């Protein structure tokens, strides 16, 4: 195996991990906001 493989596996995995972290955080924030809206809507109905 040449050096391109080891460099690609290192930088590629790091890039994938960072992108995954950003996406997961966006999903978490969207879920938190959705839950707040749902709770508020339920209280308004009550």
């Amino acid at each position, binding site marked *: 195996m040449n050096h391109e493989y080891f460099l690609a596996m290192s930088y590629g995995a790091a890039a994938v991990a960072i992108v995954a972290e950003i996406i997961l955080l966006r999903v978490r924030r969207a879920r938190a*906001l959705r839950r*707040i809206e749902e709770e508020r809507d339920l209280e308004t109905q009550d």
Partner: protein
Amino acid sequence: MNWFYFASPATFYRLAGRIAPWFFVLAAIFAAAGLYVGFVVAPTDAQQGEVYRVIFIHVPAAWLSMFLYLVMAAYGAVSLSFNTRLAAMMARALAPTGALFTFIALWTGAFWGRPTWGTYWAWDARMTSELVLLFLYFGFIALANAFEDPRRGDRAAALLSLIGVVNLPIIYFSVQWWNTLHQGSSVSFKGTSMHIAMLQAMVLMALASWMYAAGMSFSRVRAIILERESRTHWVRALARPA
């Protein structure tokens, strides 16, 4: 300056929202500069050839994995001592990014080790203690979320983070205390044995990693504040109008 003003989740939520994007911008600038210097300007290593360029991501990730743990434990100590909600939330916000950089350090280390040492992994003191750090991060995250009452989770996780601090000097000094496969530091306060362009690339990538981690932590603490303060009026007002 009145620090208690910024200790309020409502104030800090807005402050973190204002500063986080700037950290991401700085991270992108430093990363672009670091990758350019690392791949275009820095010369080929006489012994390791091109594969040494893994250090531009491996070393900053390893530094940050330890630094973030230290900051997380410091927030844990503040949260335990003063019973502050925001400190506990910051500790929670730092843990996933710390775990991510520990994983990157271990993963890139494996892909540097294979061509240079002939193996992806060895149960050497530096690598094993770094793996223990990853498990400490996982333990912190699991413990923090294991309780129905988040304040109990905060306290248990803070205690674990403080106990785990003992692992940091073990990681740092392992290459001096034991005869390890992992080489000693190429950079210290006394100087460096590296080519100046290699050092510049490593410092730029370290700055990029620090900026990214700061941006992510501030962004994540905002999500945590939303989750934890969801019943307060100011959080309700943030969500779309009913």
